[in-house]
């Protein structure tokens, strides 16, 4: 799907973090949680920046896409300068894989680090719509960078926060909170005397954030026997699986972040090789 888009709003919510709403009536209904759109910053001219930018969709509201992004380079700098009503951009999408939701999911866990919480937004809503209680662990450098925190608190989710500087929630790293949550669930299972541990233990976890964080959290979860999914951000050229520029090393060889991913089962990812292959 190709579609010209209109900027509905584009405002800073933290230092260098923006909340962008795009009107995209044809694309919006097709998006599923975890997918991305490939955004051209100016379709009228300008070969710089030349390439499209892959941006995860945080939420869909009617015919609008909500996208959270950080200003990290030329492309996002240009994007931050786009005014309300701008019609110079277009997207192709939705692209990539989505967070899988098995029919029998009862006790999911969501772990988001920094802007990594954004691609998990639609997934959290999907669970809410199904009446499934999801536990959320969200971490960031500072309280200010705990994006969409208010939205979470408004719906009284089972949510805990961690910040690197202690300005909100737990003062420390997210893996501590993940271990704590696993221990609580394990105790709960013991206390209720439920023979099926799955009654309270997490049956699936969805993790998105900086790759070292994804690696650390996945290791803890996989060790506890929790099925875990992660999402990979990569610089991309085509975005549709043609150029092989955005590969992620897996136990089955190289997979494309754009077309095979961005969502992968954590157990199949070779995290150390993946981290080494990133450009900064």
């Amino acid at each position, binding site marked *: *799907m*190709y579609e010209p888009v209109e900027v509905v709003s584009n405002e800073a919510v933290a230092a260098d973090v923006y909340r962008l709403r795009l009107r995209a009536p044809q694309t919006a209904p097709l998006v599923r949680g975890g997918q991305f759109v490939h955004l*051209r910053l100016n*379709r009228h001219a300008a*070969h*710089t*920046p*030349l*390439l*499209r930018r892959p941006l995860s969709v945080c939420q869909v509201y009617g015919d609008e896409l909500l996208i959270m992004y950080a200003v990290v380079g*030329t492309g996002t700098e240009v994007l931050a300068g786009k005014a309300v009503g701008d019609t110079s951009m277009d997207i*192709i999408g939705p692209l990539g894989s989505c967070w899988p939701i098995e029919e029998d999911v009862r006790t999911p866990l969501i772990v988001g680090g920094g802007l990594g919480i954004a691609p998990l937004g639609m997934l959290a809503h999907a669970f809410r719509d199904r009446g499934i209680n999801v536990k959320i662990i969200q971490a960031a450098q500072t309280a200010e960078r705990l994006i969409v925190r208010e939205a979470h608190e408004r719906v009284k989710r089972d949510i805990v926060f961690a910040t690197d500087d202690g300005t909100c929630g737990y003062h420390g790293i997210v893996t501590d909170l993940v271990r704590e949550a696993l221990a609580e669930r394990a105790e709960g299972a013991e206390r209720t005397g439920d023979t099926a541990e799955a009654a309270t233990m997490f049956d699936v976890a969805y993790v998105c954030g900086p790759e070292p964080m994804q690696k650390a959290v996945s290791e803890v979860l996989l060790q506890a026997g929790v099925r875990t999914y992660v999402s990979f951000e990569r*610089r*991309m*050229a*085509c*975005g*549709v*699986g*043609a*150029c*092989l*520029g*955005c*590969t992620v*090393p897996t136990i089955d*060889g*190289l997979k494309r972040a754009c*077309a095979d991913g961005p969502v992968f089962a954590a157990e199949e990812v070779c995290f150390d*090789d993946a981290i*080494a*292959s*990133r*450009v*900064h």
Partner: protein
Amino acid sequence: MTPSPAVSTSVHLGSLTLKNPVMTASGTFGSGKQYADFIDLSALGALVTKGVSLEPWSGNSGVRVYETPSGMLNSIGLQNPGVEAFIADDLAWLREHAPDATVIVNVSGHTRDEYVQVIERLAQEDGIAAYEVNISCPNVDRGGLAFGTDPDSAAAITRACKEAAARGDGASTAARAKRPVIVKLSPNVTDIAEIARACEDAGADALALINTILGTAINIQKRTMVFERTVAGLSGPAIKPVALRMVWQVARAVSIPLVGMGGIATPDDAIEFLLAGATAVAVGTGNFIDPTLTVRCIERIEEYAAEQGFSAVEDMIGALERRDIP
């Protein structure tokens, strides 16, 4: 302006007739299926696949794509599943879902014998219109560019591939044995016309140019080269003037048809290449920015031909007015 129905859009690469002069550039279009949601693959003059080698190649590790002003560097390293998987998956998909598409298979190898074996294997299959022999990839250590920077090596590979194509596996039909061999040239040489003439003399049916231009990038914070292999291939609008000059130069040096490419980002760019002397053009990096660019080029070329009073697109090839030099 409505295109005149009188304009004939077909062009010829050796024995192969293309319905129009617009192709895709190898490596930028996958095997076609990745773009089937965006365009009708059978509308293309030809679809050129990602490079195919005898065995699977895993490509390069580290950073693979890097944006530059008006362009991009790539160091993919010809990652591909090998010729058997290509036939079983990609070619089978094309035969089923795009039976009317004109498919040109790009062929790579580490040695002359590997190129020959890939072509011999492909010669057993239907659904292929021609072979494009890649002697110009800057991103692999053995083969690739090494064959394309020396006239004798280029000629030797061309001759071997041409013989393999004509010979097939002995069981090939006459039609398969007639498939043209297009040799894809590197711009990373002192005199591209010399390489072009060597390939023409060795029997190439057509030449494709240019492949990417060698470049690099440095991470100043880490003080490291961005790419593990140090160098990478530059593509995109940044290279168009260089590509256009080389096509113009080679068009004057050889009499076989040329497929011009390098930085085509608009239909007008494509027209420039035709006027410079290319019989067909290929859209590469431009597909990433606008997946429908090929189709827009096809429409605009026909329209332009009518506007300019050409009854056939083939009459546009090299149709430059003489500039009187005082």
